[in-house]
């Protein structure tokens, strides 16, 4: 190939190759180059946790990595799809993933329901990896937690919003861009407003729990509900969650029910029947987060009104009224007690701060998880030992009941004290028991309920016995 023609050919090929390279460079993702992202990932990694923002593909991959590492204790599933078709991914961690073991309480963390409040999303990804790592290292606390709880982690309830927020160029993100879902719906105002109903019932008489019973069809047919909202509602109906937290950003506080003011005013402390345990639960989060519980911390913004904040906690309505929120929906439609945690003054802070947010929240996240093992728990069965589902467990002095799950199991969170618990079910005779509740662990109290027919039979037999005795004595 030495001749001039050959040289020309070679040169042409070189030019073609150069052209090919130029062509290849053309198609790039906006913002950072892929190579740049990979490099950063390696630098900020710690035991498989990469302290950087995860877009939807990376989120999915991170969860898959956790599953692959901990197949024995994890499972990924989806609660539905966002408006734009992204899966609402959940990773479940328990010693028997995919299975509700009778008596094992169910816990959930939900992040990023406002798409531009990004810290919660990332913390939950880190948490999943952390739990897996620690479990394999033999960390006793974590091992016990995973063996005794079924933990569900949903890093993002609004993946569409997040993509919008994350796609903004530069580090300074708008306060509102990406907050709502792809339809422009604020998911934390989209839940059926059960508070209103409860407030009416309080005045006129009526239940204040499980208000969504039998209304599943109405939920499905409600056109105003976002697909994300619907997915969560079904999730709540399907799994007997006991404790939950809803992660947000824009401030630094642990917020508890009720979120909506009774009178309809802008701010007003509106306590729910379980105010005592909720305060305790909120504190169990904030007290382990140094920034949140710092008494001398200035408010996030100069003119913010944080007068309602106490020890890093606040009643929702006392701070500002929120109708249609997910937190109260949990409390009023199911057994689940949920608080709202505001994790950061900045909704979408720079990536470099994520590691420190993890350090600040790591212990809070674990401690809050452990709160599920408090109060009273047990089984409601009939005299033959069969579970009684949907039995009501009420506590004297607290106007809010919980109901037993399919295996007859129940969990009732309570602050330390002496209580009278009553278990009842239609067609059964109620039983009341006295219980002394410590801070933790949960006290086991089981109920064996006698049905009416059984009692009737008993009474009949007793009567027959008496008659027999009488007749023998009196020589009938």
């Amino acid at each position, binding site marked *: 190939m030495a001749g001039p023609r050959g040289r*020309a050919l070679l040169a042409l090929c070189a030019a073609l190759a150069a052209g090919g390279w130029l062509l290849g460079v053309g198609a790039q993702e*906006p913002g950072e180059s892929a190579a740049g992202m990979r490099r950063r990932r390696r630098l900020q990694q710690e035991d498989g946790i990469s302290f950087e923002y995860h877009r939807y593909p990376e989120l999915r991959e991170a969860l898959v990595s*956790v599953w692959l590492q901990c197949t024995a204790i994890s499972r990924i599933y989806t609660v539905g799809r966002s408006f734009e078709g992204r899966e609402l991914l959940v990773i479940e961690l328990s010693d028997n993933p995919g299975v509700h073991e009778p008596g094992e309480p169910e816990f959930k963390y939900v992040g990023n329901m406002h798409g531009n409040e990004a810290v919660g999303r990332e913390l939950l990804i880190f948490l999943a990896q952390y739990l897996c790592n620690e479990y394999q290292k033999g960390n006793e606390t974590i091992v016990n937690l995973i063996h005794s709880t079924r933990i569900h982690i949903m890093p993002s309830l609004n993946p569409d919003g997040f993509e919008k927020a994350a796609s903004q160029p530069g580090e*300074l993100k708008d306060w509102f*861009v990406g907050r709502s879902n792809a339809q422009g719906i604020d998911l934390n105002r989209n839940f059926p407003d059960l508070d*209103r109903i409860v407030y009416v019932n309080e005045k006129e008489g*009526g239940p204040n729990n499980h208000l969504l019973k039998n209304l599943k069809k109405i939920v499905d047919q409600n056109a*105003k509900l976002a697909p994300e909202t619907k997915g969560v509602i079904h999730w709540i109906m399907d799994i007997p969650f006991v404790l939950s937290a809803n992660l947000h950003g824009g401030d630094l506080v642990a917020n508890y029910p009720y979120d909506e003011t009774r009178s309809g005013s802008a701010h007003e402390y509106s306590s729910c029947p379980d105010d005592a345990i909720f305060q305790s639960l909120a504190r169990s989060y904030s007290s382990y987060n140094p920034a949140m519980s710092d008494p001398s911390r200035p408010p996030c913004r100069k003119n913010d009104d944080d007068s309602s904040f106490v020890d890093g906690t606040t009643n929702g309505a006392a701070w500002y009224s929120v109708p249609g929120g997910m937190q109260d929906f949990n409390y009023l439609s199911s057994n689940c007690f949920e608080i709202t945690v505001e994790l950061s003054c900045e909704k979408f802070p720079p990536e470099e701060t994520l590691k420190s947010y993890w350090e600040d929240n790591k212990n809070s996240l674990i401690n809050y998880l452990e709160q599920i093992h408090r109060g009273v728990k047990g089984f409601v069965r009939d005299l033959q030992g069969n579970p009684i589902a949907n039995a009501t467990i009420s506590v004297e002095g607290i106007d809010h009941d919980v109901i037993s799950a399919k295996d007859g199991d129940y969990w009732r969170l309570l602050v330390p004290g002496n209580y009278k618990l009553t278990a009842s079910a239609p067609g059964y005779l109620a039983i009341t028991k006295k219980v002394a509740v410590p801070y933790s662990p949960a006290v086991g109290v089981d109920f064996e309920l006698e049905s009416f027919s059984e009692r009737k039979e008993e009474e009949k037999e007793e009567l027959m016995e008496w008659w027999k005795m009488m007749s023998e004595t009196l020589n009938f």
Partner: protein
Amino acid sequence: MGFRAAWALVLLLPGGLIHGFPKPRGVEDKSLHNRELSAERPLNEQIAEAEADKIKNISPPENTPGETNYSFVDNLNLLKAITEKEKIEKEKQSIRSSPFDNKLNVEDVDSTKNRKPIDDYDSTKSGLDHKFQDDPDGLHQLDGTPLTADDIVHKIATRIYEENDRGVFDKIVSKLLNLGLITESQAHTLEDEVAEALQKLISKEANNYEEELNKSTSRTENQAGKTPGKVTLKATTQNGFTNRESDETISNTLTLANGLERRTKTYSEENFEELQYFPHFYALLKSIDSEKEAKEKETLITIMKTLIDFVKMMVKYGTISPEEGVAYLENLDETIALQTKNKLEKNATDNKSKLFPEKTEAYLEAIRKNIEWLKKHDKKGNKEDYDLSKMRDFINQQADAYVAKGILDKEEASAIKRIYSTL
């Protein structure tokens, strides 16, 4: 039961109050990151600069006429080869009735105007024709000296004159433009020069005829307005052949002058229409969405220009013949167009495939940790005999289930299965 019905009704009432909450507005966004491929610009500028120099140097003769003239003439040569082909095709189609007529803005249409000057002209009269025929590559004058820029302009003008078709000029100039060898302003300049040369030609020929006619006809008729160098409509007063000739050539020049506007309209929007020699490339460029993939388009054009430059150089140094150069470019056109198409189509998967090995690495690491832990904590206690096959089955099952639910994509699932099968 009454209150239940009541609260059911309440539930159906429209939803609650919407509260604005006291949050401050965010800070303004920064401007978008500029994604220009900086490597392209210098090349473009280089070509433009180089050609600007060449064109500028056309008027005063250079010390080294060889270099610049060669490349300019080379282009012309290459284009000539191209246009020759076109011409042959056109001839076959026998559309030789003057397209020129359409450009006539003149009012009266005389059937005799359909006659072409070339039919009436004796080729020996122009003398230049000779050169074209004897000098296939047009690089040299008859006496062997290399062509100057002036010569080139003259050649073009002659060509136009003979063909009586300003389309020739249009084609040549558009090709030069499209190949990035000249800029718009240079094209304007060239047009002016060619127009001038053409004028001279016309007036020269007109004078020749005049002289002839003067011999046979009265002087008075032809005296008015036949000033050389000033071709105006006044000159079209006379009868017969001269008038017709003048009309046509005058119109020719006029349209040339008017052509400035027309040309800018035509060529700015449809830059690549003339790239008939690069059909695939042209088709590809058209298929690229100018808004979304402007960068791709730019890149492609630059590549094409670079490669054409390259071919020109080879032709210039005699490494290959012009025909071969053209053939190379043809092949190139097909290859590039195909390559780019594939790349553009694979855009979505392209990123994925780049990141995929990286992702597989992460997954591999996770799987490794899993196996390690499982071996340690095997409940049966047989550390060596850990049942990997069961694990494999479980993983296969789960992977498939996850693909069905949209949790894993197919490639990931197969990669994971593959990793497990190799353990």
